[in-house]
């Protein structure tokens, strides 16, 4: 197996997708916990979530844009086919993304009006819960043999995503994002009671993740043979599974023991490995069984220039991102540095 330029670009797209899951995914998960906020500290939970997401959520969202532009620049036929076959869930996803983005900022600025704030909070929470399911459905469908192409044209209609496996992946994504968000949030507050709230939620979500993971694997046998074979029968299969499982279990143990920074690393690590495993199992396909990376690749000059563009972009992007996270997150892993959060956006 010799990696060509198209493979490298596809790998970068996968990395961007993983970044989106780890950062943007957690923001979606935050919406889930906003929706499910309960108990005597419900309001404090919501404030912690809004606070944690506030400065970074716009930047986290851009990873999705990056995935989309890489896809349509480097693999135009794949982009065209996916956008055609999955038109319906993608439209719903877009409505969710619009409502979520707008409601988040409107809620932040309606600070003096409780009723309005609650209303926008509700819109934010519901749309944040729906969007990950649709993202999962899209990922799930392109992993199955449901989409069929003839000469690059979609011939399987517009409902290939109406299948149990795709929905299972959708709810798996939702459970994962909720889990990730709850784990992250344990470090976004210094109040021990709130921290316990999020710890309990993370443990609950871990159960949901386990159930959905089993469901996905069970359904994959019939629906997604490409993925299943990829996951079971390649040389990297066993070590990857062992490592992913170890990380997932390790994350739960760390939560149980209240080793929050470690839990954060492991929870993020297991999601990254799951997506990595998915990408490796899909290889060399972009749409399982139908369209390979090689077949969909744009001309070499486009790919070369894109690679240069991505490298140059990364030189600007990575230090900026590091600065953003260092400013607001104390460097990603170790939670808020100060307790006196004091911006005019939340008071």
């Amino acid at each position: 197996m010799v990696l060509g330029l198209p493979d490298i670009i596809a790998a970068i797209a996968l990395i961007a997708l993983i970044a989106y899951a780890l950062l943007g995914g957690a923001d979606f998960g935050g919406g889930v916990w906003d929706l499910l906020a309960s108990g005597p500290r419900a309001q404090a939970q919501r404030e912690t979530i809004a606070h944690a997401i506030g400065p970074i959520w716009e930047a986290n969202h851009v990873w999705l844009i990056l995935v989309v532009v890489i896809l349509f620049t480097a693999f135009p036929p794949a982009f065209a086919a996916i956008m055609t076959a999955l038109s319906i869930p993608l439209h719903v996803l877009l409505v969710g993304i619009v409502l979520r983005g707008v409601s988040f900022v409107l809620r932040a600025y309606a600070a003096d009006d409780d009723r309005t704030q609650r209303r926008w909070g509700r819109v934010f929470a519901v749309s944040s819960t729906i969007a990950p399911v649709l993202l999962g459905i899209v990922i799930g469908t392109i992993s199955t043999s449901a989409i069929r192409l003839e000469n690059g044209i979609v011939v399987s209609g517009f409902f290939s995503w109406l299948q149990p496996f795709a929905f299972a992946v959708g709810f798996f994504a939702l459970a994962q994002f909720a889990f990730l968000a709850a784990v992250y949030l344990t470090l976004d507050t210094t109040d021990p009671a709130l921290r316990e709230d999020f710890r309990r939620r993370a443990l609950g979500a871990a159960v949901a993740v386990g159930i959905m993971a089993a469901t996905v694997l069970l359904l994959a046998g019939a629906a997604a043979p490409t993925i299943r074979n990829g996951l079971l029968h390649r040389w990297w299969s066993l070590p990857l599974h062992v490592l992913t499982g170890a990380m997932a279990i390790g994350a739960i143990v760390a939560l149980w023991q209240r080793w929050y920074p470690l839990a954060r690393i492991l929870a993020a690590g297991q999601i990254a490995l799951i997506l990595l495993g998915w990408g490796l199992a899909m290889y060399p396909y972009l749409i399982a069984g139908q369209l390979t990376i090689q077949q969909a690749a744009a001309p070499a000059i486009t790919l070369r220039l894109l690679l240069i563009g991505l490298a140059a972009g990364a030189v600007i992007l990575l230090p900026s991102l590091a600065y953003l996270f260092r400013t607001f997150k104390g460097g990603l892993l170790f939670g808020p540095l100060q307790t006196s959060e004091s911006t005019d956006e939340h008071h």
Partner: protein
Amino acid sequence: MSDLLAARSTMALSLAFHIIFAAIGIAMPWLMAIAEYLWLRRGDRLYLSLARRWARGTAIFFAVGAVSGTVLSFELGLLWPTFMRYAGGIIGMPFSLEGFAFFTEAIFLGIYLYGWERVPPRMHLLAGILVGLSGVFSGLFVIMANSWMNTPTGFRLENGQPVDINPIAAMFNPAWPHEALHMTIAAFLATGFGVAGLHALMLLRRPTDRFHRAALGIALSVGVIAALIMPISGDYAGRQVYRLQPAKLAAMEGEFETQRCAPLRIGGIPIPSEGTTRFALEIPCGLSLLAAHNPNAEVKGLNAFPPSDRPNPIIPHLAFQIMVGIGVFLFLLGLWATWSYVRRRALPASRWFLRLLIIAAPLGFLGIETGWFVTEVGRQPWIIYGVMRTKDAVTPMTGLTVPFALFTLLYFLLAIVVAVVFWRQVVQRPDIPPLPGQTPAVATEGD
């Protein structure tokens, strides 16, 4: 409604909605950065309050612009998959670069909005400037993709397929300089006058309010500079369209017959079935003079093109008249302000000046919308000028009126909601909370 029309309407709606927020996203960060610079420079707390108030507005508009832009990046494929399959490899480059510009914009906006106390003052100001710079670059890259649709270069056709692709040549296609220049200036023009109009409204009620005087001064300076240089970019754009897209120029001008010494038509309604433009004020040789800087230059009319290749001139002509009318009005308003400032070191004292500014507030945005109608409708029936027709690029998906209805409803509601929240929380809000540990903002702030 046919699926093609529904697809075009959905795209038009999404762009018409997004372009407002995109333009504000380009120019507004500069206004807030100027205010913050004056605060650091002069130490007058009034400028700090102003920067913070403008930042709130920027945050709301940026968030809406970000999500409506996301919608567009998907809609390129959802509505025009054939176009993207064909063009993705040729013009993906500016979109990818736009992705990074958008990234830095979002990152530094986060730092700006939430970092008042977290980062040093100079770094904070720098963050604001970086938001503004990335906004300008974002716009530039998107315009490069659009201008390629108008003047496609960087490939060769072989059996209907693009070969010898050169993405750099595609990016730097002949139409990018005039489109980018015109649109970027328009963003500053519309935003400058838009903001100035809001503060003029407040000043009309409380004429001595220092806060709104200062705000008006900054916003109007930006708007007036843009208004005064706009004619140069407009002239350049007009000559380029004459050279590069004669059918579009003919549609804009309601010109049916090819002729030398072509007249400039002011107003009027093109009637394609009769092949004439009625009720227009005609200035002899005016069009030849403007388009080619030569009164005897030949200007092609719509009849010079096969009927299947002609844009319908009604929308381009009317939209063009409105855009130019607005440009002239804002130019004159800008001249008045400049003249007064040069003579007396102050803006015109007349209440009529404030009233005109209020009228001008939405006009710049109307100018952006109509200008964009000219470019896009004038390009029809092509999605890639001379290469691919719009009707051949549309998705095979049926029932496209459903997403059209959905997005119409969604954007309509959003427009109302954003306007209400903006009004209540930014314009009318009496106090933007001061930074903790500092004395309250100046008493003159707000309403």
